């Protein structure tokens, strides 16, 4: 249906796409994979008319097309759901869905009642129960995503492009999304599905196209390739060892417990969860989004005040934690929201990596820029942060490098524990392996690592022990030898076969 040929696009200093090609058929879900910066988003934007290609042609149903803007592509039935939703939090569900295409009454005025009825119909078609008058800002992320999809259906889309739709949802929500996408496919809609999570491609998609460095690498039917082959195509090198080796079972059992959190409670989100972290061991914390994992980690670090429970660390027992206490006790915390909570975006690498250890770059109250610089230089080297130097503002760096900057910050202070919440979210494959390596290196220094992750392969591949949370409580822990994707899923969902 859609055919892209010889598309090239250059930005100042970067050749984003060169001689790119892509064919998408009606009624298929077509995966588009590649590292960050491989050109997926540029390609998406060109298909959606948001950017014009420098060269090459596109055709729809065999007829050549050239978009004058996003509106033209939309009129032709091409609809994009970006990773960050294009929604208005203070407008209602109905308005968000029909914005610009309201139902009108005889006076040509916007008919709010009719618009809401139409929205309700659409939601019913999607099998979602959402009151059309509710404000979108009050909805869960998964519901917001459904609003986005409903919005796409208004235009009777022929091609739907989803950019990492599962980056923000998990578990049941993902499955519900997939069901709806299959339904749309069966109605003849073509879908381009972009994701970093390779396992999703195998469960959802029909064909997959790999891009790398702005170039087309390969297109395969999903049945023809396996995970390792895809990674090799994406990275361009043989990735036999995606995850660094784990600790020996004996070492895991023998490792000293450095932090013991007991019966932590935090409103309805954490209802009595206990966890112990051991020196030099990577402990996974799995469960669905909303199961209370981030809240538990925040409570241990003191970012949220716990209502009950204790945290024992360094021979002391704390009933109340604050970030200041946690940092003094040698705990580090890499937040899941590096832009919103982690980094000072307008400041440079040096400021950000030394933010937690200001005492070590100062004499008394005075900062010592030379020491600050040398620490930043060392970090850039050790963590392989791609930047022009310590003075590079973090806002202009890629997600992976921002994440490494954030980890570098805490690597200075985490003598005992480092908590990482979704450490590889929005990070490309190359930077991922780096982050895994860094985690293992820190563990080798004797730091206890707590890794929260929604990606099962990551949980299984990285963790020496795995705690699983479900609806605020902690139904179980998996020791070495028990850690499989099935076991984690069983504990995270209601049907419990294993213990």
């Amino acid at each position, binding site marked *: 249906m859609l055919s892209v040929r010889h598309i090239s696009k250059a930005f100042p200093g970067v050749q984003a796409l060169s001689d790119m090609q892509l064919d998408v058929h009606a009624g298929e879900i077509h995966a588009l994979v590649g590292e960050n910066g491989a050109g997926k988003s540029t390609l998406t934007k060109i298909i959606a008319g948001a950017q014009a290609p420098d060269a090459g042609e596109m055709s729809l149903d065999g007829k050549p097309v050239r978009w004058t803007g996003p509106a033209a592509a939309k009129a032709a039935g091409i609809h994009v759901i970006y990773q960050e939703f294009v929604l208005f939090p203070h407008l209602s569900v109905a308005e968000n869905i029909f914005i610009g295409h309201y139902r009108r009454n005889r006076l040509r005025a916007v008919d709010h009642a009719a618009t809401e009825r139409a929205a309700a119909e659409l939601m019913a078609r999607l099998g979602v129960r959402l009151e059309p008058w509710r404000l979108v800002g009050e909805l869960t992320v998964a519901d917001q995503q459904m609003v986005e999809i409903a919005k796409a259906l208004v235009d009777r889309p022929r091609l739907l492009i989803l950019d990492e739709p599962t980056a923000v949802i998990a578990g049941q929500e993902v499955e519900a999304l997939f069901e709806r996408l299959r339904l749309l496919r069966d109605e003849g809609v073509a879908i381009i599905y972009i994701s970093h999570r390779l396992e999703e491609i195998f469960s959802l998609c029909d064909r997959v196209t790999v891009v790398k460095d702005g170039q087309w690498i390969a297109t395969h039917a999903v049945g023809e390739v396996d995970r390792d082959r895809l990674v090799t195509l994406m990275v361009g090198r043989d990735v036999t060892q995606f995850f660094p080796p784990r600790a020996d079972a004996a070492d895991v059992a023998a490792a000293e417990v450095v932090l013991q959190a007991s019966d932590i409670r935090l409103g309805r989100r954490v209802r009595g969860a206990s966890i112990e972290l051991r020196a030099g061991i990577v402990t996974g914390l799995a469960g669905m989004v909303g199961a209370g994992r981030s809240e538990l980690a925040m409570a241990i670090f003191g970012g949220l005040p716990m209502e009950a429970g204790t945290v024992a660390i360094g021979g002391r027992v704390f009933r109340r934690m604050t970030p200041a206490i946690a940092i003094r006790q040698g705990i580090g915390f890499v937040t899941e929201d590096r*832009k919103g909570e982690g980094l000072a975006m307008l400041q440079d690498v040096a400021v950000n990596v030394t933010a937690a250890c200001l005492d070590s770059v100062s004499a008394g109250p005075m900062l010592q820029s030379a020491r600050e610089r040398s620490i930043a230089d060392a970090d850039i080297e050790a963590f392989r942060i791609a930047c022009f130097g310590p003075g590079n503002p973090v806002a*202009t760096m890629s997600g992976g490098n921002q994440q490494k900057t954030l980890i570098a910050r805490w690597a200075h202070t985490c003598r005992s524990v480092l908590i990482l919440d979704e450490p590889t979210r929005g990070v490309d494959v190359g930077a991922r392996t780096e982050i895994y390596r860094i985690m293992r290196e820190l563990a080798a220094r004797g730091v206890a690592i707590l890794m929260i992750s929604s990606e099962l392969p990551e949980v299984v591949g990285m963790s020496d022990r795995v705690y699983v949370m479900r609806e605020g409580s902690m139904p179980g822990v998996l020791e070495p030898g028990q850690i499989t994707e099935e076991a984690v899923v069983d504990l995270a969902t209601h049907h419990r076969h294993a213990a």
Partner: protein
Amino acid sequence: MNGSLLAKARGVGAAKAPLAGRIMPPGFTSLLSRYGIYLFMVVFLLVAAVAAPSFFSRGNLSNLVLQIVPLAIVACGQAMVILVRGLDLSVSSVMATAAVVATSFSGHDADIPSIVLLSLAIGMCAGLVNGLLVVKRNVSPFLATLATMIVLQGLRFAWTHGAPSGLMPPLLHRIGAGTWGFIPMNLPVLLAVALPLVLVLHRTTLGRRVVITGGNPMTGRLLGYPVDAIVIGAYMLSGCLAAIAGIVLGGYAQIVDNWVGRGFELDSIVAAVLGGFALSGGRGNVAGVIAGSIVLALAGNIVLLIGLPVQFQIILKGVVIVFAAACYARR
């Protein structure tokens, strides 16, 4: 304004991932946004020198500095508030109140300690109220400080019964308007304010904590910084500096009315923004603010020197604001 009138964080397609090996140092625009104000200052000085040879006369220069100092002092405080994502509209009201306080005693130099202490206390209280409203009640800084401005204005009117009439202690008048040789006597006041501020903000751990908190309060919280205290402190500092500026300006004018410092709330914001402080917080340096104040004052001075009607002062100021901001303080 708590991200309100300010840039919104949300947006699609975040930062473009630069390809490894292609990391470029900051470009021209970035340098311009950092150092543009100094360029402006130099250009203005050149224009002044060419257009009016009398510009570099001793009398004109010291008079110019006398006018710059009060604005620069307020703007320094304003900049601290902007640094923590705020805005302080109450500074003009604090200035006028401090000036009124200065003339409310017997008019002898012996009153100066009481005048200074009382003014600073008022400034600090205003800042405290602003800070508490913003931090604890989550009120938009624009409104919180607007309300404080109005309340303080009312209290001042009530105190003076509408027409302040008192004597300014002679020493304050000399500080505000006098020169020592050709050195304006209020210049040391600015130096006493600005140098410690530069030192603390750019060279100490406390300053670093303020900068990081301003850029991202949540980051500050997770780093264990006293975020609330930092924000409230910024407002209190702004109040104190406004009080000092009010005394200096009152001394310059000698005759004090209820409107000393009128317009300084907006001028100080402009000086801080021209000086490179982002309205979204977390960036800026104090030297730029002083340069910003100089540029604003120069605009007025040039008009007088080339003999245009005094009204052109405001017009040129407006043009400078828009033009300079368009050149290098874009959103």
